C-alpha cells in the first residue's frame, strides 16, 4: 500500500515566509474578525458610526451659518424676521470670533463624543477581553503561537493591535471621519483652522485612553484562565471601582483606582472645556451677566480636579497590568 504522502499530490511551500509585521497583523485581523461576527459588536459598530455621522452633520450644519444663501439662512428667513435676526447675529459672531465659537463648539462636540466613544470601547472590550489571552491560556493555544516564528512580544503586539482596532473602529474612526466629512463641506477655512486644535486634543485623549485601556485589558485577560472570570474582573474594574469612586467624599486613593474616573479627569484636562466656556463668557459680546455667570459655573464644573492623581492612577494601573501579562506569558 502507498504511504499517505505518496497518494496525494502535496504541494511544497518553499517560498520565503512573510515578515513578522504580517504575522502580527494576522493576529489582529483574526481577533477583530471574530469579535465582529457577534451581533452585539455589530450593534456597537453601528452606534459608533452613527455618532460619527452625527459629528459630520453637526459640523456641516454649523458651517452653514457662514454660507451666504445657504440652507440654514433660507430656513431662518422662512421662519420669520425674528429667526432671521438671530441667524444674522450668530453669523456675525462666528465671523468675528471664530477662535471662540468654532473652537468652543467643536471642543464641546468632541468632548461629548469622547463619552460615547469611551463607553462603546469599554463595552466592546468586555467582549474582547476573554479572547485576548485568557482563552489562549485555557486552551493551550499560547503554545501554538509561541512554537511558531513569533516571540511573546509579537504575540502581545498582535493582541494589542486587536484593542487598537476596537478603539479605532468604535471611537477614533468615527471621530476622524465625522470631522473630515464636516470639513469637506465647510464654507470657510476658519472651520478647518479652529476645529483642528480640538481635534488634536480629542485624539490625544483618545491615545491616553488607548494606552490605559489596552494595558488594563491585557492585564485582566492574562490574570486568570477562565473566560467568565475574566469578564467578571473586567466588570469589577470598570463598573465596580467606578461606582466606588463616585461619592465626592471618597478618599483620593480610592478614586484613583477607577479607570473611568481617572480618564474623566484626563478628559477634562485635555479638552479644556472650562477654558472654552470662560473664554466665551469673557470675549463674546451681547451676553447678559446671568448667562456669563452660567458659563463660568459650567466652566468650574468642567475643570479637572485631580489630573496629576488621575495620571498617577493610570500609570500604576498600566505598570501593574504589564507586570501581570508579562509574567503570565511563557518566556521567549
Amino acid at each position, binding site marked *: *500500500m502507498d*504511504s*499517505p*504522502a*505518496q497518494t*496525494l*499530490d*502535496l*504541494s*511544497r*511551500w*518553499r*517560498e520565503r*515566509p*512573510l*515578515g*513578522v509585521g*504580517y*504575522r502580527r497583523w*494576522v*493576529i489582529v485581523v*483574526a481577533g477583530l474578525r*471574530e469579535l465582529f461576527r457577534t451581533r452585539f459588536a455589530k450593534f456597537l459598530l453601528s452606534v459608533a458610526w452613527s455618532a460619527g455621522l452625527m459629528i459630520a452633520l453637526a459640523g456641516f450644519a454649523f458651517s452653514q451659518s457662514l454660507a451666504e444663501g445657504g440652507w440654514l439662512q433660507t430656513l431662518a428667513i422662512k421662519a420669520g424676521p425674528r429667526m432671521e435676526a438671530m441667524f444674522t447675529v450668530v453669523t456675525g459672531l462666528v465671523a468675528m470670533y471664530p477662535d471662540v465659537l468654532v473652537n468652543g463648539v467643536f471642543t464641546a462636540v468632541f468632548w461629548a463624543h469622547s463619552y460615547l466613544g469611551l463607553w462603546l470601547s469599554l463595552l466592546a472590550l468586555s467582549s474582547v477581553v476573554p479572547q485576548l489571552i485568557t*482563552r*489562549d491560556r485555557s*486552551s*493551550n*493555544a499560547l*503554545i*501554538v*503561537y*509561541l*512554537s*511558531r*516564528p*513569533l*516571540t511573546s512580544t*509579537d504575540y502581545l503586539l498582535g493582541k494589542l493591535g486587536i484593542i487598537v482596532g476596537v478603539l479605532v473602529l468604535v471611537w477614533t474612526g468615527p471621530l476622524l471621519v465625522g470631522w473630515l466629512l464636516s470639513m469637506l463641506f465647510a464654507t470657510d477655512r476658519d472651520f478647518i483652522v479652529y476645529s483642528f486644535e480640538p481635534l488634536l486634543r480629542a485624539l490625544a485623549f483618545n491615545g491616553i485612553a488607548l494606552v490605559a485601556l489596552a494595558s488594563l485589558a491585557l492585564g485582566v485577560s492574562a490574570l486568570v484562565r477562565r473566560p467568565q472570570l475574566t469578564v467578571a474582573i473586567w466588570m469589577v474594574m470598570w463598573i465596580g471601582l467606578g461606582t466606588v469612586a463616585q461619592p465626592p467624599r471618597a478618599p483620593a486613593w480610592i478614586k484613583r483606582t477607577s479607570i473611568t474616573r481617572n480618564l474623566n479627569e484626563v478628559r477634562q484636562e485635555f479638552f479644556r472645556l472650562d477654558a472654552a466656556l470662560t473664554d466665551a463668557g469673557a470675549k463674546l459680546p451681547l451676553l447678559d451677566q446671568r448667562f456669563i455667570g452660567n458659563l463660568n459655573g459650567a466652566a468650574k464644573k468642567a475643570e479637572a480636579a485631580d489630573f496629576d492623581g488621575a495620571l498617577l492612577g493610570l500609570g500604576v494601573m498600566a505598570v501593574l497590568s504589564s507586570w501581570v501579562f508579562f509574567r503570565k506569558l*511563557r*518566556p*521567549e
Partner: protein
Amino acid sequence: MPPVLPAGDCIIEAAGLGKTYGTQRALRDVTVQVPRGTIGLLGPNGAGKSTFIKCLLNLETPTTGSAKVLGVDIRAANRASREKVGYSPEQDCHIAGMAGCEYVTYCGQLSGMPFRQARQRTHEILDLVGMGQERYRLVDTYSTGMKQRVKLAQALVHDPEVVFLDEPTNGLDPSGREHILKLIGSLWRDLGISVVMCSHLLRDIERVCDRVMIIGHGRLLEHDSIVGLKARHRRIVEIAPARDTERFQAAFAGAGLTVVKLSNGKLRVESASDSIEWVLELMRTHDLPPAEIVSNPDALHELFIKSISADHG
C-alpha cells in the same frame, strides 16, 4: 559516542543543555547531535522529553548550555530558529471558535504564509491527515482523534523541515493510529521532513523511527540508530509453532539453546546472530511443522528498560 556530523546534516545540536525549575533539574547537560531522519524520543513520564523539546522551541528558557535547531542558534535567533519547525504538543492546543480548516490556515499564516497559499495547503494537509468534511466544523466539537489530526495538520501546514510530535497517536482509534503512523513514516521518506517523535509506545517508535534517543532523569541515556541499538542488544528469536510445541522445545534444548515457553504459547530462544537461518535449518532437520518466527521482537523495550534501570542504579 556518535561521530561529529557536519552542521548542515543536523537538525538538533545541543551542548550542555540544562533546565532547572527551582531545585528540580528537569534537563541535565544534554549534549547531542541529531541527524536528519525520523527520530524517536523515549523516556518514562517526567524524564525530561517534553522539556527537551520545549527548550529547543524556546517555549522554556534553558538554564545552561546552548542549542541549534536546523543550524540556527535558539537564543541568538529566537524567531528564525522556529521558522522551519513544526510542533504538535501532547495536550490540546486549538483556538476556540475556529473551524478546523480556519484554524490550520491561521497557523499557516502565523508562520508567514500568505492567506491563499495557507488555505490551499490547509486543504491538502487535512486530506493528508485523513480529515473530511469535519474540517468545516468548529474544533471545539471534535473528538480526541480529530483534534489529534488537526494538531498534526497545523504542525505540517507551513512545510517545515523538522516536525516535533509529542505523543501523536494518543486518542486515535486503531485505523486512525495506523493511518497517522504511516503518514509520520512517510514524512521523511517521501517528503524529506525530519520527525522527532515523542512517544511512550515503543512499538510505534520502532516501527516509524530510524533513530532513538532515550532520556531518563533529564539525562540523555542512549542515542543511536535502531539498527545500532539492536546490534548491541542480546539477540532473541520468538517462535510461534502451529502445533507440536513440545517437539520444538526438545529440538532447541537438544541443540544446547536456552528456551523459554511464554504464557501466550510462544517459545523464546536466545540467538547467536540476527539471522533466523539456523532456526529454519533446525526445523528442517527435525521435520518440525511451520511456525511464525520473529527476530528481536522487543529489543527496543528491553533496551529501554535496561537503560532506565542502569540510570537508576
